[in-house]
């Protein structure tokens, strides 16, 4: 009896919410992303503004880290020179899975103003590491960066931890055809 009452009244003291473990984990992950700072050029200046009290990036649960081993994602903000590209790659490889990349500004996206005559500039950081979110702008305003951050959170929330999403969708379709109810990501429940 007591347990059912708690289910009916989930938000009062001692209430119980039923959820999918994957969603709970992803919710947690998406709200506490620690990032590796990688300020390279003028975009990094905008990024400092983003971190300061006026825009307050920390309200996203993002804490700056200076070690790749403690970071969930890396923000490449600025011009990636060929000399730096090797270092970025090495840092990215040192980060623990799961890891994400935000490319901030035109330079990191595609070479920016150096796309033609920049003999020393890598034309886009996606030539060395896989980028999850591109934030356009030269430099992007903090609001634009927040949009990018929210896109990354969306992506993290969608991620399959236990099974791949496509596989789940396939199985769901199959189960629906057979009339079975399945809680995704958890144990199969037989209807009978």
């Amino acid at each position, binding site marked *: 009896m007591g347990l059912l009452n708690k289910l009916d009244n989930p938000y009062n003291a001692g209430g119980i919410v039923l959820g999918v473990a994957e969603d709970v984990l992803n919710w947690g992950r998406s709200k506490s992303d620690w990032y590796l700072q990688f300020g390279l050029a003028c975009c990094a200046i905008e990024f400092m503004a983003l971190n300061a009290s006026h825009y307050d990036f920390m309200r996203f649960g993002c804490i700056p880290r200076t070690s790749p081993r403690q970071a969930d994602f890396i923000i490449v903000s600025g011009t990636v020179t*060929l*000399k730096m*590209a*090797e270092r970025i790659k090495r840092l990215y490889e040192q980060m623990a899975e799961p890891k994400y990349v935000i490319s901030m500004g035109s330079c990191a996206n*595609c*070479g920016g103003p150096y*796309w*033609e*005559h920049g*003999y*020393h500039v*890598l*034309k886009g950081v996606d*030539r*060395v590491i896989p980028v999850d979110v591109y934030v356009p702008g030269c430099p992007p305003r903090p609001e634009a960066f927040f949009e990018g951050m929210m896109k990354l959170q969306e992506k993290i929330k969608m991620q399959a931890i236990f099974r791949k999403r496509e596989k789940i969708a396939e199985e769901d379709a199959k189960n629906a055809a057979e009339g079975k109810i399945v809680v995704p990501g958890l144990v199969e429940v037989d209807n009978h």
Partner: protein
Amino acid sequence: MQANEIYEKLKAEYGDAIMELVSDEATEAWIRISPDKILEVCLGLRDDKGFKFDYLANLSGMDYKDSIGVVYHLYSVELKHRITLKAILDRENPTIHTVERVWKTANWHEREAFDMFGIIFENHPNLIRILSPYDWEGYPLRKDYVTPQEYNGFKVPY
């Protein structure tokens, strides 16, 4: 001191090493000096009681298409006068003595000029590239520089 006074005084002291004074350009007046006397002239400019050029504000390389140049911008904090020196070098073999022992500032400036223009500063304590990677090929600010297609496996053009 005005530029022409500086020129006269230098000319009296070093003779042919001081080649010409150009003061009719929109920029600051400059003195062309012979590259093989650069160390003596710079030591004189720094230590002479009348000059006291204690500050090397800038040292940069230049590409004049048929030759390579080194430009020195000097300032005296005490006497508040300034002068620009230019040394014109052979394009095939741009070599000049370092002024690192005259003004320590010259150390990194000369490394930059070496990095970007390939000017060899003789007797420099550590003449290696400063901006480009150590294994970079060519001198990027030369007018005939061609952007490489590839560097260490990275594609360079867009």
